[in-house]
């Protein structure tokens, strides 16, 4: 065991910078265990207070459009087909056929084998590395469980990147994390990050899913957030959406506090993506408030904050129509994808 603790880890740039050149299981563990604790009652109270903000009129209109711009429109079903993905992409491009001023979503999020279909369906609307357009995000690394060998995870990731994925949503090995094998989790993230590398030397953006519903404690969430950032994650993401609880406001607040700390320490901005369980505009606005008041408004951009959601978009569209017309319509006035 002691020997293992001195095992050298993959020399991820951020970790080497912060912890030191001789990065080992032990030095990583010391760092993670030295993080300040989280008081659950206080964290939840703060999230409650942020969730109680009253966002009205012009602020609400701005927020609704912003939410759409930050959505990763998602389909992650065993029953997904090319047809389903095309339908999702059409919705991503034209969220509301009755109002063409409606902004487009940030990305569509699909399983790895659907990436090519998504890219084809997007056509010229695909960002393909540019600043405009819609990204394609692929879940990878034996999503959602993460229970596969490292070589399978790397292949899963690399194939999605080759197929044209702009973003990779990987899952961490929660079993390894909970049993204290932080180094293993770390090395896997570093390896997957390398698998995100394209032939031209650029990288697909890496979102690291912590699956906070399985990590259970806020202290674990804070450690896993740090670990993922140190290993090179561009984003930290709460959940797969396949485990309950998925995203919660306190967990997202905590992860925002971590990226805020990282920014103060290094000047580098890391993204946060709550995913799963955010279904209403009202809930999503609470997240916008939490972002703005915790790390600042500059985080409310697609490269720094995303919602992983499927049904959220239609609720936002209904709210948007209500603001425009002054009356509520019904579910038949927005399209199913």
């Amino acid at each position, binding site marked *: 065991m002691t020997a293992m603790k001195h095992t050298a880890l993959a020399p991820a740039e951020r970790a080497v910078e912060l912890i030191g050149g001789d990065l080992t299981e032990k030095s990583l563990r010391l760092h993670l265990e030295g993080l300040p604790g989280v*008081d659950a009652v*206080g964290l939840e109270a703060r999230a409650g207070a942020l969730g109680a903000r009253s*966002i*009205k009129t*012009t602020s609400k209109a701005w*927020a609704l459009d*912003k939410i759409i711009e930050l959505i990763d429109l998602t389909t992650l079903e065993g029953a997904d087909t090319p047809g389903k993905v095309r339908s999702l992409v059409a919705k991503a491009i034209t969220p509301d056929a009755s109002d063409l001023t409606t902004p487009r979503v940030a990305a569509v999020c699909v399983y790895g084998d659907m990436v090519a279909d998504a890219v084809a369906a997007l056509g010229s609307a695909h960002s393909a590395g540019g600043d405009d357009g819609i990204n394609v995000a692929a879940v990878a690394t034996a999503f959602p469980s993460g229970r596969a060998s490292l070589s399978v995870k790397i292949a899963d990731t690399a194939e999605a990147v080759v197929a044209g994925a702009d973003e990779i949503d990987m899952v961490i090995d929660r079993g390894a994390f909970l049993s204290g094998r932080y180094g293993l989790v770390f090395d896997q993230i570093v390896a997957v990050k390398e698998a995100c590398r394209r032939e031209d030397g650029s990288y697909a953006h890496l979102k690291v899913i912590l699956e906070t519903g399985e990590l259970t404690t806020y202290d674990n969430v804070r450690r896993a957030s740090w670990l993922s950032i140190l290993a090179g994650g561009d984003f930290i993401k709460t959940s797969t959406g396949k485990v309950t609880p998925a995203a919660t406001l306190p967990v997202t607040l905590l992860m925002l506090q971590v990226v805020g700390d990282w920014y103060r320490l290094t000047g580098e901005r890391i993204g946060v993506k709550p995913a799963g369980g955010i279904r209403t505009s009202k809930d999503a606005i609470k997240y916008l408030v939490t972002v703005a008041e915790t790390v600042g408004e500059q985080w409310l951009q697609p490269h720094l904050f995303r919602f992983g959601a499927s049904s959220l978009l239609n609720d936002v569209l209904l709210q948007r129509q209500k603001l425009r017309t002054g009356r509520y319509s019904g579910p038949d006035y927005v399209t199913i994808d």
Partner: protein
Amino acid sequence: MTFLEYAPAPESTAILNLRKSYGLFIDGAFVDGRGTPFQTISPATEVPIAEIANANGADVDAAVTAARRAYERTWSKLSGADRGKYLFRIARLVQERARELAVAESLDNGKPIKESRDVDIPLVAAWFFYYAGWADKLDYAGLGPSPRALGVAAQVIPWNFPLLMLAWKIAPALAAGNTVVLKPAETTPLTALIFAEILQQADLPPGVVNIITGAGDTGKALVNHGDVNKVAFTGSTAVGRAIAKSTAGTGKKLTLELGGKAANIVFDDAPIDQAIEGIVNGIFFNQGHVCCAGSRLLVQENVHDEVISRLKHRLSTLRVGDPLDKNTDVGAINSRQQLERIQELSEVGEQEGAERWSPACELPTTGFWFAPTIFTNVSTSHRIAREEIFGPVLSVLTFRTPAEAIAKANNTPYGLSAGIWSDKGSRILGVADKLRAGVVWANTFNQFDPASPFGGYKESGYGREGGRHGLAAYLEARGWNSPVPSEGARA
């Protein structure tokens, strides 16, 4: 636009049904006062809200006479269960009219609507519910079988939590079988007068609760009235001391809840983000107009810079402004007089060499406002570390060891509350045990519950409010050989 400039979200005042002028509530009805009436104003705008009657000595006498009569003829004859019914009814009516009471409180006091809505008024209802339950269980108040009510209670309350302080005073007094004459503070009488309407709605027998308005003279006449059996006061230490002197030797039972200069102790292993929230809540809740406010931050020296930097960042997100806006975090200072005191002590702080800092924030041009302020480099000998400022001003001191933290925390003439922030349970328990303060919060601050006794050491007063202890303050034990009366006659 920037998102953080949230669009205005004001709570509507349309729910209020205020009168142009309010009389004194004596013997179940509003009557004219004999003193010169005064205006109560909104501290956020200085706009008058209503004209308020001013009780002179004769009015005080009328109120005490009504209370005595109600005690002798009605209230002391009721069973505990029946008294409880009235208290439950009052509690429910407070809940029914919660929004109206919250709006009135924020209008008259200047506190943010989110606090009056989510803290003050729910606690008012909770206090009446809690003591309603006690009314028929006085045998278990810790004073032996069938304890006796004291008689007429004279109660004088402050302006920082107008209706909540009223509830703290009236609920246990009535549960124990006393009748009451209560005087709210002259700057915040509004919710007490709406409460009087609630008492009418509840059909409380006339004279059981009398509410008289006025300034210091009225309060003085009330506590010094010869037919009063119990005096309960919450307010400044100076006035409390005067009351203690004037009631000495009169046989009146006395409880005092006075000032404070609480230490909020942050150890280096504290859950840092939550500690920052606790510091903010400790001193900027209710504009710092809180007797148990965590006005002295004691922070372990090795995390001082980290804590201050995070605290400043957090303060820059506080929203100061219209108390009725649902997004306001810090409202108006309650009065010009209080604002001047805060300004004066803050200037003293600068002169004494402490470093003053406030976030950039635009204050309204009318009304009474003071930006959230922190002083660093404060020494224990500075006046801002000794005197109660009673405003949104935090003094930051440092310590090196737990023993030093305890010594500095206790080095004050006050002793109302304290806070401890640490992830280590044994340290929390060890330190809490040595703090001379009536309430010690661990990893939280400014939490109140009707079941928990509240009160101070030293110059913070004596007696406890809340819980069984708060009930006992309105009861006396029967002599060991007194006959126990039959159930129906029990007070």
